[in-house]
């Protein structure tokens, strides 16, 4: 038990299960016929939403670590990122199998011709190397390059917002809200923010959290 707590296996397991709840709810609703008149579209949207939520959650961990005394956020960063990948795979499989039913010519046309699909697909492709290198082993092997490689997630975030913005017909309020959130999360990563944060802590007479580089 002590060992479990020390290695954080238990909290991690709990978070892992929580991350599967959206899928569980989707299955539940599907089973009970609660997905409305156009279930395939509904699944497309529900899974798409969760890809975006997990991306944003993943990107929240570093700022949380920077601005708090907590150490735990960084321990969940890779897990959350992997779930973004998990849901984008579901999102894409739903598109491939249920929505298009392997109509390859249409799929290729979509990916090439429809900007919102093009950027969504690019985001999916960019997530693959990140998922593959998410193990402890890979992290060790890549060393400093790991961080460089994984800054791809910023581009993925931007592509995700573009994908959403370009697929709505007229009401772009929701994608704009998530776009603003993403912008905020990216701003936390600029030197500009670090300086601001240091200054604030300095004036407050406290120790700067940002000093303890991550």
């Amino acid at each position: 038990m002590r060992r479990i707590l020390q290695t954080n296996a238990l909290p991690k397991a709990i978070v892992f299960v929580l991350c599967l709840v959206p899928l569980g709810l989707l299955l539940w609703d599907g089973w009970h016929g609660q997905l409305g008149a156009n279930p395939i579209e509904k699944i497309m949207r529900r899974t798409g939403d969760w890809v975006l939520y997990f991306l944003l959650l993943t990107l929240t961990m570093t700022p949380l670590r920077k601005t708090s005394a907590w150490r735990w956020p960084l321990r969940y960063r890779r897990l959350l990122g992997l779930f973004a990948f998990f849901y984008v795979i579901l999102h894409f499989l739903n598109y491939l199998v249920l929505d298009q039913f392997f109509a390859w010519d249409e799929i290729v046309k979509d990916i090439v011709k429809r900007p919102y699909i093009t950027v969504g697909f690019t985001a999916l492709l960019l997530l693959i190397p990140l998922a593959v290198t998410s193990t402890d082993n890979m992290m060790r092997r890549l060393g400093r390059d790991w961080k460089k490689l994984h800054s791809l997630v910023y581009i993925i975030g931007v592509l995700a917002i573009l994908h959403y913005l370009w697929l709505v017909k007229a009401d772009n309020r929701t994608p704009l809200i998530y776009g603003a959130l993403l912008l905020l999360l990216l701003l936390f990563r600029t030197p500009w923010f670090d300086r601001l944060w240091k200054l604030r802590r300095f004036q407050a007479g406290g120790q700067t959290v940002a000093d303890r580089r991550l």
Partner: protein
Amino acid sequence: MLIKIRKDNAILASEITDKSVYQDRRQFIKASGTLALAGAASLAGIGALSVSREARAGKKISGYKERAYVTDEPLTPIEDVTHYNNFYEFSTDKEGPAVMARAFNPHPWSIKVEGEVGKPGTYQLEDFIKPHTLEERIYRFRCVEAWSMVIPWVGIPLANVIKRFEPTSKAKYVEMVTLYDPQRMPGQQRAVLNWPYVEGLRIDEAMHPLTMLAVGLYGEELPNQNGAPLRLVVPWKYGFKNIKSIVTLRFTAQEPKNTWQVTNAREYGFYANVNPEVDHPRWSQARERRIGEFLKRKTVMFNGYADEVAGLYAGMNLHKFF
């Protein structure tokens, strides 16, 4: 497999009043669908397309001519027709209008007739409708978003209404306007579109025998979310031409600027004829998903009404006038 089941079970409009009929069918679809598509598809909920979402209190329409125009395709279940709506005046979410329009009261209702017309005036809905015989018409409905339904409308041919108001020789177009009342239509409190919603037809399109003004569907008065109390139905055009909750009929010499064209002229035109060869810039129009079916089907020119309406567009470049 699933598709076949639904096809074989085409409901006749005259059976519609018996709710148990389509509910039994629904059970059947659910059971067979679950068996057929267990596994991956159960995730999709295809096996259980939908459940009755809410009791409806639709008022029956009496004394209309049944089955005046029909198709042998199976009807889209009424729950789907009434719970999957694009009606931004209430919500931009497709399930939203059914909820947000619950409190809307479409009575009393009056319609203004104006412009190039011999008998302008404001008419109470009842007086507007009374001189005409209501009839049922089963039409395909194809949304610009590439989904489609089959809907039994109740209404009157627009041509009969137009003749009655005696448009002048200058009347080349009919412009129609939706109610603007942000208190009653909460979606209008946000400038998602350029309110009020405007649509229009060329006068010959408006006079075409297929074009109708609907006051009901499935033998009942139009549910609020479907455009109560009066809406346009033009079955060979994309859904957004079928303007809802109409308060104005304006006869004009100039082509009206319809709302979606104003919003995005690159993506939406005035004509909006269903055309599998002219893609929406952001998605293909070659195929569509018939609500309730799994595989997409091919979209047909003029939504399958080419024999009747293609003549209206003889010699026109439909890639340009989309």
